[in-house]
């Protein structure tokens, strides 16, 4: 046992003022991947300012005290380096890709953007236009609309997860430069950041660069990693249809509340979800909806565990005439996985799948930098990867059944259908 031993060697440092740094050095690599997270995801969007977190991410490279937007982009991209800021659910991200030759310069620009953005008014308007167009595109996609409606149904108005991270036409129209600046000031402090590095770089080189380039990066008032969120379980199932005339395909999204990353049920539910919607070609759902019945090109599921307020989602893209049959098929599979333990063969396959999958994920610098973020954000421990196989092998078939029974419940699920 333990095919993962030694597959992710991590060094961790925390500066006196709270900046957390994890490095996975790979001497035979030609590149370096940097990722940063900040507790400033869309979950922190004020109620009438949906999309503010994403708006702020879009603004981070659009001018600093030292550089205008154009200079930032030209300096970074003329090196062949790439820097991006974006925002997920709980956290906002920064990332850089560079080579050892361009590392120090790329990091200097990354920190300049993180610490010193000035959010010029004219750039606010440019970003507003881009975000409004993206909203129009989102609302033209059956998959995105089904997903948005399911999310809004599962997390009621007032819950920070209710709104779409991309915002809405009216909320984006109302965001001001001051909103962006104060959101940045509140959340993007060096004491709230986690930085991970994977590739041809040592901890010593990272620390030297950080020391050189972060003197202007200020601290923020310590705050929670996510707002206080209580997700009430739906008392009954609900369904909503959204008509999108002349589309060719219908999209279905079925969502249930699921536990946070550190919950005892996490691993059992992850294994159950893998069997239900992922392993092979989309798990039991793919086998039933696509392979046996030929109803859909995709029918799959995902368990999104977060710091809090996770969810499970099944989705399928089907011909409009097959919506009812596909729904029936998905509900049936949701029921089956809660009724009896998964088959022994499925159980043994899913255990080896997760271990093998982890090994492949850590093979790339991007995968390693991302996984170190997960380890740190959820406090999983630096030896997590080494313990992972043992951990999942301790989960029984009955544990999987119990976890699925708790969360994958068609009697509590919300269902959204966007269809012509």
């Amino acid at each position, binding site marked *: 046992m333990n095919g993962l031993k030694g597959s992710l060697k991590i060094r961790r440092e925390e500066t006196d003022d709270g900046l957390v740094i994890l490095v996975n050095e790979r001497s035979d690599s030609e590149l370096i991947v940097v990722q940063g997270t900040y507790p400033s995801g869309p979950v922190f969007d004020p109620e009438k300012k949906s999309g503010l977190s994403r708006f702020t991410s879009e603004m981070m490279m659009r001018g600093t005290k030292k550089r205008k937007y154009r200079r930032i982009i030209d300096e*970074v*991209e003329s*090196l062949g380096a790439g820097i991006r800021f974006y925002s997920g659910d709980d956290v906002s991200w920064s990332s850089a890709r560079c080579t050892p030759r361009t590392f120090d310069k790329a990091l200097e620009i990354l920190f300049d953007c993180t610490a010193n953005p000035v959010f010029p008014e004219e750039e606010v308007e*440019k970003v507003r236009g881009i975000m409004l*167009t993206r909203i129009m595109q989102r609302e033209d996609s059956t998959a995105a609309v089904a997903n948005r409606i399911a999310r809004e149904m599962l997390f009621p108005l007032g819950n920070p997860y209710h709104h779409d991270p991309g915002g809405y036409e009216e909320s984006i129209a109302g965001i001001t430069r001051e909103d962006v600046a104060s959101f940045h000031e509140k959340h993007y402090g060096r004491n709230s950041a986690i930085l991970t590095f994977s590739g041809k770089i040592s901890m010593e080189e990272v620390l030297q660069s950080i020391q050189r380039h972060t003197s202007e990066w200020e601290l923020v008032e310590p705050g929670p990693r996510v707002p206080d969120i209580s997700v009430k379980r739906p008392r009954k199932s609900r369904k909503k249809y959204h008509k999108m005339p002349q589309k060719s395909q219908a999209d279905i999204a079925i969502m249930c509340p699921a536990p946070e990353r550190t919950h005892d049920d996490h691993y059992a539910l992850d294994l159950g979800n893998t069997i239900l919607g992922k392993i092979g070609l989309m798990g039991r759902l793919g086998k039933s909806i696509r*392979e046996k019945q*030929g109803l859909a090109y995709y029918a799959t599921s995902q368990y999104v565990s977060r710091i809090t307020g996770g969810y499970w989602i099944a989705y399928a893209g089907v011909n409009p005439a097959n919506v009812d049959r596909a729904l029936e098929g998905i509900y049936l599979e949701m029921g089956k996985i809660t009724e009896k333990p998964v088959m022994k063969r499925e159980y043994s396959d899913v255990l080896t799948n997760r271990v093998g999958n982890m*090994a*492949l994920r850590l093979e790339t610098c991007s995968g390693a930098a991302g996984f170190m973020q997960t380890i740190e954000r959820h406090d999983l421990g630096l030896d997590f990867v080494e313990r992972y196989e043992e951990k999942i092998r301790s989960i029984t078939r009955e544990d999987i059944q119990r976890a699925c029974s708790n969360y994958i419940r068609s009697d509590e699920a919300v269902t959204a259908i966007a269809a012509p």
Partner: protein
Amino acid sequence: MQLLSNLHETVLENGLTVITKEIPSSPAISNWLWYRAGSRNESPGITGVSHWVEHMLFKGTKKFAKDKVDRLLSKHGGVFNAFTSEDYTTYFETLPSRQLRLALEIEADRMQNAIFDPKEVESERTVIISEREGAENQPTYLLYEEVQSAAFRVHPYHNPVIGWSNDLKTMTRDDLYSYYKMRYSPDNAFLVLLGRFDRKKVLEEIRDLYGSVPRSGIRDKAVPTEPPQYGERRVTVRRPGNTEYIIASYHVPDMTNPDVYPLMLLDSILSGAKAVRSGPGFERSGRLYKSLVERQLAASATSNFMESMDPNLFTLFVTVRNRVPVSKVERALLREIDKICNRVPRPGEMKSALAQTQAQFAYATDGVTNQAYLIGAAQLRTGYRYLEDLQRKLSEVSPDDVSRVARTYLHEDNRTLGIFYPSKEVSQ
């Protein structure tokens, strides 16, 4: 250059080319089997056959019953799939290195022994039609399809890879099986294998598994040459939607023409380097972004020089910004093309394009899957050794060359311009 170091090429007696690269530090292997079987090899009535055959290769052989391949690969955490393009169909498995033999066995077996059960063919018909319907939901897909089919009248690049709806409804099991038998043979394929293994041992295994598979002796008919275009073609698509899109496509030569290098740099200057498609995009330093997105005319603006086996298209794609007249954006886009035709790029632009390409070679080494794909794609079009000289050839391109190819190819008479107009029906 790490991407191309330690590559070995072996040709088996039955014509199968095997390209290997040992990477002892990797815990994984990535195995890619490429067939010269894409939409360029299809004929009217059976458009989409390459893609449908690809689906059928997951439906079982005598040795590996339906679902068994998925199960065996998944149980080891493997990443696997297949995809079909204009020029090829490729199957790949990335697995923990201990499972290398499994990947080789699966591909060797389904090269010849896929069953094509008629019931499975019918079940897959609805899946593929559903896949096409999903694509039709996207305005950008509809517009690309329309532009592509208008730009090519004779060459099979006219046809969408997924096939025309009518062909998907009428194609038979025999159509699929004959195509499979004709094109799935060692002399019409090559294998790319990267990761942790012992090359000598692996070659023995490959000989053992593939050696008895006979050549098909396939001799392709010449693919029809697209005649020159003598005037702009314009197409419009009107469907419900919220956003306008513009595509402008120009015919360009194939990869054996020396003009491809200045065309790649032209692409880089317009929207960032893509000669080795790895790592971050560099579109924000490109001219299109500056002139269209930053000036608040567009939400995105990119260019793409299509590398392919036959002459293909150089395409500009713009998402029109909400509430900006599409005609204004079209004029701005074409002005940008005029500029590069009439004024040579600045030295800084040329330097950036080369630095971006150089960095992409480094980014390409992040993981066995990406490397294997890049080597395979290059092998298919020109032979992978083309990548060895790529940077040198790009560095020899002058700013005048870039403007010259812009004038030669990006002119009005060689253009197909498509616009997606959202119609007014409103979602409820």
